[in-house]
């Protein structure tokens, strides 16, 4: 095994084979076989990825060219894969989490007809293939191919249960919003081609650093390109203003939400920016924009999550919010922290989604948390793993979320205490709504129908085992990035990724804050988060946030006078805020904007249709007038 990197093509090849087999033979195969092919192909990819990762860890990295994809004169785009630290980490996340979710799906989707079961796994494999292409490509065009591919699969999977028309609409919305982002991405690619005459990362990033006579990009070019790329990223990674598709995308099956809309596809934007980090480092304006967009998204989505009652919607807004966090990290130049958070987030958010899937499964398709409650008694494993997920996302010390979140906040503090403050506030909101969710779902009394209660059961092993594995990862995943103030030099992720971001770090310079400040920041956030968690826990386990519980709450009203107070000064305003953002910002401003574009196109279409009157005379007249106009301009104005 001299150089496993040459086998890199196997990584996307396995899912592709899985897709073809499952897609073409889905009528001939039976369900277990489809499941084995679907999951097995991803497992095979995972093993190869692991071997690649080990090799990369020993310092290997390479660009492997397979064939010439496009070549015109001196311009060519090779079909090449870039295997380095950044891509190998993403490979592990995609194939690893992907495998677990495939296993989970074999049980979760078991009630589908064999044909649909096969279709589902075919799509899922195709998605993994596209995602791997996105991550492994050695140039922007291959990335774009994967980028479109994941969008397409996401579209197909959101609309998987096509019987419900609103799902259809959600699929469309996701598609259109992604298209807007893709548009910007494509224009950026052409801008780059125009300047560098190449799209390879190596060439582009080298060109970006050229100065003096060799300078390729002007400051304007850099800003323009990075902003366009960032718009692309906002589409895929659900940032303001293109985020509303993600909550709607929850119409798809839950494992899909876990894989595509939490762990992998939505982090593509972060990958893209981390990949082109030098470009961003060189254009501070874009970095500022990213910081503020990320922060605003994190805050906005967190406030909206406060009011949601659909278990998947809460998680969806939480995902948007966490993605905002990652962009905040990118904006502050903390590329490693962003990747770190991508990783930990992949673990605990996949865990939470899969856990919610387990709950929905047990509840017979019910997603409204007001009709749940007290599930901890019935679903021990789900309860426990879900709790770990909540603790991890809230940022309780010792779990993975703490480390990555803390790193982001510390970097935000370096940039500006205001940003830090808003970031911390968002973290507190996160802790609050997550434990509102947890307590309402798992604690208290069961509020569903008798029939549902009767059917409550722990899910089968194919569901619980991925939950347990992800729970373990959510706990230990953070220990690859132990911050320097706890133990010097223990941040192994940092040292691992350092070749990728070396140039950026040199340009940005090392801004360290003293260890004591870091201790203090971590301490403050920990204490506040724990207070919020306890508050939410006690509040919602005793008095769940439901209308049905008012009678019960009234009894306790006198005892919990303090609670009432909190209610008045903290919870009510918060919920008002959530409602406000949900109503005003999302429905009017953002949806209005996006729908407005659609309406404009429709209007234009209708107007243009009128010209098509069916009358030969009118057609010829219009042709003659156009000719006249062109002649007149050509001969009398263009001299």
């Amino acid at each position: 095994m001299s150089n496993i990197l040459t086998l890199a093509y196997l990584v996307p090849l396995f899912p592709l084979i899985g897709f073809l087999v499952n897609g073409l033979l889905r009528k001939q195969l039976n369900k277990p076989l489809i499941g084995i092919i679907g999951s097995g192909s991803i497992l095979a990819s995972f093993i190869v990825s692991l071997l690649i990762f080990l090799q990369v860890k020993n310092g290997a990295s390479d660009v492997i060219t397979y064939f010439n994809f496009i070549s015109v004169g001196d311009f060519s785009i090779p079909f090449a894969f870039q295997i380095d630290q950044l891509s190998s980490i993403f490979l592990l996340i995609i194939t690893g989490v992907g495998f677990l979710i495939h296993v989970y799906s074999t049980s979760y989707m078991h009630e589908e007809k064999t044909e649909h079961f096969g279709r589902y796994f075919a799509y899922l494999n195709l998605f993994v293939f596209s995602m791997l292409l996105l991550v492994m490509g050695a140039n922007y065009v291959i990335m774009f191919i994967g980028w479109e591919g994941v969008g397409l699969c996401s579209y197909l999977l959101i609309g998987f249960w096509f019987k419900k028309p609103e799902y259809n609409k959600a699929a469309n919305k996701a598609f259109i919003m992604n298209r807007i982002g893709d548009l910007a991405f494509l224009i950026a690619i052409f801008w780059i081609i125009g300047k560098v005459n190449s799209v390879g990362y190596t060439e582009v990033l080298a060109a970006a650093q050229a100065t003096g006579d060799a300078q390729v990009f002007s400051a304007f070019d850099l800003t323009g390109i990075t902003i366009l790329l960032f718009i692309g990223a906002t589409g895929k990674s659900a940032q303001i203003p293109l985020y509303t598709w993600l909550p709607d995308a929850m119409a798809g099956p839950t494992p899909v939400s876990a894989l595509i809309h939490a762990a992998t596809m939505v982090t593509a934007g972060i990958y893209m920016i981390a990949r082109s980090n030098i470009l961003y480092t060189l254009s501070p304006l874009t970095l500022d924009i990213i910081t503020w967009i990320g922060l605003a998204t994190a805050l906005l989505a967190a406030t909206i999550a406060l009011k949601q009652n659909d278990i998947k919607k809460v998680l969806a807004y939480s995902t948007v919010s966490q993605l905002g966090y990652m962009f905040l990290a990118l904006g502050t130049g903390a590329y490693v922290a962003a990747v770190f958070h991508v990783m930990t987030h992949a673990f605990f958010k996949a865990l939470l989604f899969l856990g919610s899937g387990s709950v929905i499964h047990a509840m017979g398709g019910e997603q409204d948390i007001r009709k749940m409650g007290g599930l901890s008694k019935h679903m021990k494993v789900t309860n426990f793993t879900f709790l770990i997920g909540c603790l991890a996302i809230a940022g309780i010390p010792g779990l993975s979320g703490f480390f990555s979140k803390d790193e982001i906040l510390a970097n935000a503090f370096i940039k500006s205490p205001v940003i830090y403050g808003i970031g911390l506030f968002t973290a507190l909101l996160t802790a609050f709504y997550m434990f509102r969710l947890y307590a309402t779902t798992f604690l208290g009394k069961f509020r569903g129908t008798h029939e549902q209660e009767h059917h409550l059961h722990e899910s089968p092993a194919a569901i619980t085992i991925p939950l347990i594995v992800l729970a373990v990862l959510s706990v230990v995943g953070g220990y690859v990035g132990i911050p320097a103030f706890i133990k010097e030099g223990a941040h192994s992720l940092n040292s691992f990724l350092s070749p990728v971001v070396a140039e950026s770090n040199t340009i940005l310079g090392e801004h360290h804050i003293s260890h004591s400040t870091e201790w203090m920041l971590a301490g403050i956030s920990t204490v506040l988060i724990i207070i919020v968690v306890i508050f939410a826990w006690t509040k919602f386990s005793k008095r769940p946030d439901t209308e049905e519980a008012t009678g019960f709450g009234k009894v306790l009203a006198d005892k919990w006078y303090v609670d009432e107070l909190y209610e008045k000064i903290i919870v009510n305003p918060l919920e008002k805020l959530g409602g406000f953002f949900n109503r005003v910002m999302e429905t009017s401003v953002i949806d209005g904007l996006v729908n407005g574009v659609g309406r404009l196109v429709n209007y234009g279409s209708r107007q243009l249709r009128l010209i098509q009157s069916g009358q030969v005379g009118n057609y010829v007249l219009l042709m003659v007038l156009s000719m006249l106009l062109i002649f007149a301009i050509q001969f009398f104005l263009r001299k």
Partner: protein
Amino acid sequence: MNALFFSAIFGVIMMFSAVLLRQKSAMRALAIAGMLFLLLVNILEMNGTVLIHFNTAGMMEFDRFALLVNTILISSTLIYFLLSARDIEKAGQDYGEYFTLIFFILAGSFLVASFKSLLIFFLGIEIISIPLYILTGADKRNLKSNEASLKYFLMGVFSTGIMLMGITLIYGAAGSFEVAKLNLGGENVSALTIAGMLLLLFSMSFKVSAAPFHFWTPDVYDGAPTVFTSFMATIVKAALFIGFIRLFDESFGALSATWQLWVAVLTAATLFVGNITAVFQQSVKRMLSYSSIAQAGFMLMALFAMNNAAKEGILLYAAAYSLATIGIFAVLARMSDYTFEGFNGLARQQPLIAATLTICILSLAGIPLTAGFLAKFYMLKAVLTTGAHFWLLIFAVLMAAVSAYYYFRVIQAMYFKEGNATISANTTFKTTLVVLAALIILLGLFRESYLTGFILDRI
């Protein structure tokens, strides 16, 4: 020359077969055999074996570019025959005659692909146009078909008049019809030349349905029998585009500073009209006719850029666009309901056909890993290389995004909607569709090996 000669011969053979053969399947087999034969002789010619040789006095040149175009046209027609030959029966009663006309149209296309004299160009355009008027009106008792035919005819001869005036003015300035002797470069370009060139630009814009000369397209495509719409919108359009590009490259290349801006304006207008109007259509057939306008906008970008990427790209575009559209039309021709709802639930009844159709649509929408994406990429790269009019590129990308909206309505109907749409399809039909889809993917992946070697010596 091989293909030209034998296409005319086969036209005549088909004409007699209409009288001599009783069985329609025999005529069909003969037509397919003829097309295979054309493919064979054309490939022979590519390898240097010229079976028939005439002295054309420099009016035609069968260079590799022309031969490659011929190959693309013949292969597309072959696939078209395999998919749709059976449906031609539905268009009208003169089965053999339709094949005759199609062979003649191909002969015209070969002329247009290899002309070196404006006379041959003109004759080629007319040999393409006149049979098309007839094919459009093939469904004689259908008023829509009648109407489309008459409309197409009246506007077509009008544009012929415009074209002839253009050629005449060019002749006035240059004293020759031969492309090589036009000598249009230099400091003082005569107003005659400019006017003639613009008139040719208008008439060719009409032929390839570029806005604002596109008005006939939706009506004619909608009214014509669907099988013939398929032929018109794909193979014929590709041939006309090749002629358009050859004309402006070889004859007016030196004047590109003058026409480039106009082509850019026409391109933008075409993209806009085609894409925006397609959004509102309820009938898939009409949507496809607007989409053919939109795709023409993309192909016009090759004319605008006129560099290596453009010439290479237009071949790829012609192939990618023709293949995908033939596939969609072949399925459409067998549908009972042409509206989007008519496709509801097709994926459940005919999963294989729906899947291949999806690949065709993805290719038209320019989704990566299909030939359509690569072709669009080439066009955009070509525009980029000119270094001017970056706005055109941005506008084109924007319009390509809009196009996804209406293309995906078909996919949505097939996969996400309840319905019982189904079509009758035999094994040949299905196999051809699969081959078509595979071709689209393969062209999208490994274009290199297909094209570069053939054309590099020409460009």
